[in-house]
């Protein structure tokens, strides 16, 4: 069905300098249903961190598309990705966001599963007059057809027809290393999850994370507050990481950052921060350089917004946020968000990270609401088909280069495309990677 429509949804003609996306992909319920089936339920999605189930028998729950998922650590310490739905009548078995359970007892008819998902009991089985055919079938919680971990980041797929996780992540693994290597002990989520919704399509969040162009337009009130705090600083206000650099103001000269696009729809946009004591990582700067070299350490200090398509974003800018995008409907999205942090950092660094986080990232803060309300304004505007093509994918068209550049080389990273940007370029070609992968998965699914 989609195959015949693709040309009216994405207009991708590199030779002509054209890349356009139709408003329809944001507000057509049929397309949303196909996205759920072919993108979220048909390929790798991010599930959570291994650190969310640190001990034997710890677990957390999440979703892949519309499907409830249980990630559980068994008695031997192995992680399992399971469909969180009882084989008996379909009820969700684990009810809580996270917890600890040697046994999961279905609250409906008491079928019982161990922390590896294996069925341990069917209530009154002997008296149940079951057939041999029943006895011959598995009663375990189904394992996800694909489940994998890279350095504490857990991914799963409801389809077995996916590349290996290593291939899916590809070069982006090097960018996850920049997070995982900030502490020898690894990474963790600061206690306290913040969940919010907005009434607009999930891809608005996908794009906004990669959108350098909106910052000074959508967030001037936040920027002005930071300026006021810097002018009159005292112990009651938290310092801002933005004060360490002016790349984002539009005034800075020379190369200030840029973007990288990778296979399978992953992207990074980045900017120069430098080694500033306004960053919580500052007290580790020397140790990290000794351990990883100056170039990699400097990358850890850069502003970095990473998307691993389709649902994971790690934003290291004002502070450090891990976001999981959960589409609910074509015009409604839920965001589950956490402060991600290196384990074992100093109490002062952790405190600073948390305060910087709350002011910028929370839906009760001074920046995110100005994004989400803008998404909702876009969603309203998408109703128009007078001119269906959006023009938000054109900046950077003549700056995009195949392969990497002098900044990716020290990491040994080979992106598909790269853009080196001055302060005002604000590349939009990195979104092309999203929509090329979107089209690939939608077409592959439709053909199946």
């Amino acid at each position, binding site marked *: 069905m989609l195959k015949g429509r693709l040309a009216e949804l994405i207009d991708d003609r590199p030779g002509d300098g054209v890349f356009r996306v139709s408003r329809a992909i944001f507000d057509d319920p049929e397309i949303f249903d196909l996205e759920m089936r072919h993108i979220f339920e048909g390929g790798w999605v991010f599930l959570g961190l291994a650190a969310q189930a640190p001990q034997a028998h710890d677990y957390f729950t999440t979703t892949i598309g519309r499907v409830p998922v249980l990630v559980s650590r068994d008695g031997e310490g192995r992680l399992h990705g399971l469909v969180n739905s009882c084989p008996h009548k379909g009820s969700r078995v684990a009810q*809580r*966001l*996270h*917890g600890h359970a040697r046994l999961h007892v279905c609250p409906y008819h008491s079928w019982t599963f161990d922390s590896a998902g294996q069925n341990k009991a069917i209530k009154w089985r002997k008296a149940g007059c079951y057939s041999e055919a029943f006895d011959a079938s598995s009663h375990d919680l189904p394992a996800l057809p694909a489940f994998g971990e890279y350095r504490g980041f857990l991914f799963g797929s409801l389809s077995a027809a996916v590349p290996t996780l290593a291939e899916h992540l590809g070069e982006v693994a090097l960018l996850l290393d920049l997070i995982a290597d900030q502490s020898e002990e690894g990474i963790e989520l*600061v*206690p*306290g*999850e*913040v*969940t*919010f*919704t*907005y*009434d607009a399509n999930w891809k608005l969040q996908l794009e906004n994370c990669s959108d350098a162009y909106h910052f000074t337009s*959508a967030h*001037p*009130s*936040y920027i*002005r*507050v930071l300026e*006021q*705090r810097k002018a009159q600083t*005292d*112990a*009651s*206000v938290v310092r801002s990481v933005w004060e360490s650099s002016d790349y984002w103001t539009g005034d800075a000269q020379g190369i200030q950052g840029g973007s990288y696009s990778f296979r399978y729809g992953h992207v990074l946009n980045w900017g120069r921060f430098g080694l500033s004591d306004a960053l919580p990582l500052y007290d580790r700067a020397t140790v990290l350089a000794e351990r990883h070299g100056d170039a990699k350490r400097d990358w850890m200090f850069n502003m970095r917004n990473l998307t691993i398509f389709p649902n994971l974003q790690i934003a290291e800018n004002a502070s450090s946020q891990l976001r999981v995008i959960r589409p609910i409907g074509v015009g409604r999205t*839920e965001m589950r968000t*956490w*402060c991600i942090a290196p384990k074992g950092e100093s*109490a002062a660094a*952790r*405190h600073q990270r*948390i*305060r910087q*986080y*709350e002011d910028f990232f*929370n*839906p*009760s*803060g*001074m920046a995110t*609401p*100005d994004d*989400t*309300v*803008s998404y*909702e*304004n876009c969603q309203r505007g998408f109703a128009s088909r007078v001119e269906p093509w959006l023009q938000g994918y054109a900046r950077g068209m003549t700056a995009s280069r195949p392969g990497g550049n002098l900044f990716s080389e020290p990491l040994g990273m080979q992106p598909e495309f790269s853009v080196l940007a001055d302060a005002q370029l604000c590349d939009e070609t990195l979104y092309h990677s999203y929509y090329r992968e979107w089209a690939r998965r939608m077409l592959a699914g439709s053909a199946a």
Partner: protein
Amino acid sequence: MTTRLSGTKAAEFLYAEALLLDEGRWDEWLELYLPSAVFWVPAWRDETTPTQDPQSELSLIYYRGRRNLEDRVWRARSGMSVASTPLSRVVHAITNVLVESAGEADAVVSSCFTVHLFDRRSERSHVFFGRYRHELHHVDGAWRIAQKKILLLNDVIPTVIDFYSI
């Protein structure tokens, strides 16, 4: 003459704060807070446990110092925040006011709140509800807020919450 806070006076104080927020009289609202005031909205660790330690756990809002609330007021009025322009209409309803402890010049007051919000732009109404805990100090002849803790119970946030809607 004792200044010990009665239940009636405590309720009047909370109602007065609510009215200032409802009517957007934010300068007068800020006047209720001591310069060193703590304004704290915990997040939740899970379904049943709010975060307890703002130094090591995430909050929805945590400020130590009225100056930070002044920043929030400035932002909401600035015209530079699309989330704050135009403002939603709000009404705070406060019940179950209980003076938990009262000294000569300080008191702890707990209460329940319901905030109804109507956003004309999106034509949506929301209700936020939870519990307040006010620590009040009697300074220069008037009660002032030394700490306000807002435990928001329905914390899946529909797009925006701000100091005026909780």
